[in-house]
């Protein structure tokens, strides 16, 4: 394209849509896409005492909670590769998840009542992650104890990697798993986040 005609400049200026119009159109796209079963993944972000969280769900349920230190763009690309590329920012689809998490963070909720989609994990790791749901609010277990609870007492290191790759932290409470000596071990959201969650549950 050579130097721009003034008519083209005028057209571009006159046709520049304002943001509110584009976001209204985006919202209608989300509604229609989910009605027609075209949405692979809906996501949103929310503030929390342990930093911003990304929440992502499929038609089957909540599939991913990510911490801010995980770079949300990378997380979304990973979800596109694993669950399908038809991903839209759809806060409405995650309203219930957000509400339960808010209640958890303000101390008024001890258990989550959500449909989960464990499509992002498999095999032994998924078995361990499901087992995490049986560790009660305010209680802790050692990696060793969790290994025993899934019938594989020698697998405490594998339990550690299952916790590190937990796609649904907080809801599947890997923060309740500590080293046998009581030290924190690791946490995908950072040790400070693990400390805050344990303190929250201890205080409640």
């Amino acid at each position: 394209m050579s130097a721009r005609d003034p008519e083209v400049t005028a057209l571009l200026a006159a046709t520049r849509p304002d943001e509110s119009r584009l976001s209204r159109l985006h919202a209608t796209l989300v509604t229609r896409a989910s009605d027609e079963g075209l949405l692979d993944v809906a996501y949103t972000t929310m503030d929390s005492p342990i930093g911003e969280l990304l929440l992502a769900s499929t038609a089957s349920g909540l599939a991913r909670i990510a911490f801010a230190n995980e770079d949300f763009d990378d997380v979304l690309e990973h979800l596109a590769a694993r669950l399908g590329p038809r991903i839209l920012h759809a806060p409405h689809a995650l309203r219930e998840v957000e509400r339960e998490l808010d209640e958890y963070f303000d101390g008024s909720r001890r258990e989550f009542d959500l449909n989960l989609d464990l499509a992002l994990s498999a095999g032994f790791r998924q078995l361990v992650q499901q087992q995490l749901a049986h560790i009660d609010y305010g209680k802790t277990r050692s990696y060793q104890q969790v290994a025993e609870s899934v019938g594989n007492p020698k697998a405490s290191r594998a339990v550690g990697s299952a916790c590190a790759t937990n796609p649904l932290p907080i809801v599947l409470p890997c923060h309740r798993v500590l080293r046998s000596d009581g030290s924190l071990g690791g946490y995908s959201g950072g040790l400070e986040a693990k400390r805050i969650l344990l303190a929250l549950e201890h205080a409640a």
Partner: protein
Amino acid sequence: MQQPFEQVVAEHSATVLRVCTFIAGVNDAEDAWSETFISAMRAYPGLPEGANVQAWLVTIAHNRSIDLIRSRERVPAPTDEVPDAQSRIGIPGATDDELWASVAALPLKQRQAVAYHHLAGLPFTEVAGIMGGSAAAARKAASDGIKALRLRIAAESRTEALR
């Protein structure tokens, strides 16, 4: 690997709306936009790696806008009501309305060539691929379109000055 569709929408939403407004008209632009992105979402998992997403979306916007124009032609518009000609783009103003009136008065081929080349930035070979015909014909249609707009806008501002 395909990027999340949200990024496709974020990057191309405004361009698609411009193109739809140009081809389908101010009042049908939003319907054409929605049809374009729903069609795109249906086809997205099959889009080949490295495809030109902008050209792909403009092609879909072209097809959906033409569908809308044809369906409007089949259904006669109600005649007992004056159609709302107010611009829904940005802040409605006299200048935009005049511009849209000038755009609407152009032949479809010229509107398409101007929109796909000047608004969406596609080269004339791609514009021709979407519209049919040769690249030279697309270039001529775009240039005629801009010329006609220039004359109309100039004529309107002269009329304005005489008032």
